[in-house]
């Protein structure tokens, strides 16, 4: 009466531990697979061969000295935003309001540039820009934190709403300050006087890059070696444990979001005062969301974020080059970025779990 028994063919087991080397091998395999798929899709769309596609991507990111600088500057801004979000994520606070916090920081900087121009010395204006933009970003970050601390309001959704409120505020001021009237945009602020323009260091790209390096080092130390960083980790892992050792969870949430928002505000300052010298509702270009992924892909490790943000910007710039070269739409970059993200997101499974084919046991001793 030996009947056919349908047993599961394989089962999934959580890995006890995995060496970081193995983990990185899995990630690299995923990225290579993703790039291969991207190449195939590009081939289908353009008819070009894969080698020249990758050559074009590389050319787009690092083709000329200027392009390299721009790429690095983009990386710097994305890195700063990702770093800003990181302490919140480590605390298991899903701050997807980076977009709004960046915008508010930028808005504050623009406000100083426009309203104070000519009334105060340039150095004072720049100082005020730094202070107000960091402060405004921090305020925008702390509002959802207060809701969370007081009533445990879902932060994913509240930070999301704060983004749109910020967007509309910027839209409002864009019209208030529009130049010329009726154009619906502000244009380059203080184009002739350059008041409120952050000073160039070496060249016009280097300031953001230096800021990013400083923030990266600072955040690395903050998270790893300070008491605040330790508290953030404990709160993120277990609120009960935090309370048990006398950490005020509410205080940590509020303090961390102040920091998170402040650094986003800094990114806004750099975008407005250092790079674009204007403000639009799309100035942060979705990087508040991309930063979530950069930070998560790097497992919240500030040093690893240098590479994840570089990867994303590299693909983005490269894909833009492809779209230009083949007269395709710029959004092609988003598709390729999306594909790479899907692969990296998916590969985490193979790092955390292993699949075991079932052994054929218990057949004889029936």
């Amino acid at each position, binding site marked *: 009466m030996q009947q056919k028994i349908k*047993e599961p063919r394989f089962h999934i087991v*959580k890995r006890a531990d995995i060496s970081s080397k193995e983990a990185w091998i899995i990630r690299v395999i995923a990225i290579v697979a993703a790039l291969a798929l991207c190449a195939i899709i590009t081939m289908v769309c353009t008819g070009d061969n894969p080698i020249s596609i990758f050559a074009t991507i590389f050319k787009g990111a690092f083709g000329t000295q200027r392009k390299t600088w721009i790429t690095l500057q983009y990386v710097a801004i994305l890195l700063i935003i990702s770093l800003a979000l990181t302490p919140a994520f480590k605390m298991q606070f899903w701050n997807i309001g980076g977009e709004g916090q960046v915008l508010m920081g930028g808005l504050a900087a623009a406000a100083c540039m426009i309203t104070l121009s000519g009334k105060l010395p340039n150095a004072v204006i720049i100082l005020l820009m730094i202070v107000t933009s960091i402060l405004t970003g921090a305020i925008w970050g702390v509002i959802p934190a207060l809701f969370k601390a007081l009533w445990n309001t879902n932060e994913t959704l509240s930070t999301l709403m704060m983004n749109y409120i910020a967007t509309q505020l910027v839209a409002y001021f864009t019209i208030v300050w529009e130049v010329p009237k009726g154009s619906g945009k502000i244009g380059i602020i203080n184009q002739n006087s350059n008041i409120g323009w952050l000073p160039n260091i070496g060249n016009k790209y280097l300031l953001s890059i230096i800021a990013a390096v400083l923030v990266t080092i600072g955040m690395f130390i903050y998270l790893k070696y300070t*008491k605040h960083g330790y508290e953030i980790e404990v709160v993120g892992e*277990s609120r009960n444990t935090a309370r*048990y050792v*006398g950490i005020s969870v509410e205080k940590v949430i509020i303090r961390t979001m102040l920091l998170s928002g402040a650094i986003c505000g800094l990114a806004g300052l750099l975008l407005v005062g250092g790079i674009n010298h204007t403000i639009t509702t799309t100035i942060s270009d979705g990087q508040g969301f991309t930063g979530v992924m950069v930070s998560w892909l790097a497992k919240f490790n500030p040093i690893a974020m240098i590479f994840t943000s570089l990867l994303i910007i590299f693909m983005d710039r490269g894909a833009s080059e492809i779209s230009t070269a083949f007269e395709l739409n710029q959004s092609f970059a988003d598709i390729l970025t999306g594909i790479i993200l899907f692969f990296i997101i998916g590969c985490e499974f193979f790092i955390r779990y292993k699949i075991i084919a079932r052994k054929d*046991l218990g057949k004889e001793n029936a």
Partner: protein
Amino acid sequence: MENKEVAISLRGITKTFGDVTANCNVNLDVHKGEILSLLGENGSGKTTLMNMLAGIYYPDAGQIIINGKEAVIRSPRDAFDLGIGMVHQHFKLIDVFDATENIILGLEGKLNKKEAEKKIREICDKYGFEINTSKKIYDMSVSEKQTVEIVKVLYRGADILILDEPTAVLTPQETEKLFNVMRNMKKDGKSIVIITHKLNEVQSISDRVAVLRHGEFISDMTTSGTNAQEMTDMMVGHPVSLNIERPEPVDPKPRIVVENLTVVDEEGIVKLDDVSFTANTGEILGIAGISGCGQKELLRAIAGLEIIKDGKITYIHQDGRTEELLGKSPREISDLGVKLSFVPEDRLGMGLVGNMNLADNMMLRSYRSGKSRFFTEKKEPRKLAEKVVNKLQVATPSIDTPVRLLSGGNVQKILVGREISSRPKVLLTAYAVRGLDISSSYQIYDLINKQKERGAAVLFVGEDLDVLVELCDRILVLCGGKVTGIVDGRNTDKYTLGSMMTQKGEA
């Protein structure tokens, strides 16, 4: 040996989780119409084994034979189809649903609550349950929830019931009621497996008993043909003499005075009602009670983790100065210079951070100290971690291993080791030996005794009355949040305690 029909037969069942073997080559039979006790220490693999019957886990190897046919149980649904139902220790009920909705959850066909309620009432009448079908689960007491779970299993027509430590949360009266229901079900021809580690329950309810130890099947026998000593020896693996040292207290002086303490939880339920007592230096004050009678809240209140409605908690320094601890956070308490250590019941959810390594966990208490205001001091915690690992023989690859990867006993050693490293004046422990094997348990008792000899005031919340009677100098008994008495540990026995645990405020 009785010659009865076999309902379940397990052959060579093995299950591992990562590096941990939960069950190894287990063979076990359950007969039709019998109540089988599955006995074993915590961590002996009882629940894992039964979860494989219920379809929660799938065995790595081995066969399950139900009513003579080999069965493959891939999911709880397969288990239901085979007539197996399990009542888990942590109830699997949806809080926002009512009883009826929970009972019919997962079944097929058109949704007809009226019909279902009728059938539920029939089942209740047949076996002697009481149930309010439209009551939401979040409004229910533990025993009501358990009733819903059992009816849920019966509603599906299960012939084989598995109850995982059903009495842990019940009062003796409720336990007796449950046992009556179980006897009714047995009369009806159903097979019942009850997981427990309480020997008196084994003797009062079951026909047969099977013993597991370290994931392996040891033996099975008829209940009438064995005795408590034999069962204990089998559970533990070597002859056990439960002799715990109890040094005489040296110069006891009041250290913590609790007066009229009342604690009400978020939902308005009174957890502690007018509790008063004194904890002395150099003395172990045991706290006994049925699970959920306010033991946890009492320790948490002293540690500054509960919102207290009323009362006073006074700490008396060595030199006679007093501090009021009420309304202070754990941090404020430690800032007062009150050296208070707390070993909570939920080790990985509260006492330690599972994903952090040993050294970082050592820092939890001390990270605020150190020279710098801003930076953490890592050297001292590492030294402490090394010390705890060496002194308490913690089995760990290194002090950089995340705590969650260690076994329960080792986790507890780290927690206790950290908490006593600050040389506390007050030591609070909740279920300090839960889930630990006998030798680890003895090590913990030893550590607690050392603190007592050092002059700490120890509060020891325990569930094993035998241990309480042997270890503690005085024992405070809680029942439904009220103190029913404080007795001398040397002049009492567990039966006295047992009866005090069930009488509300009569003492």
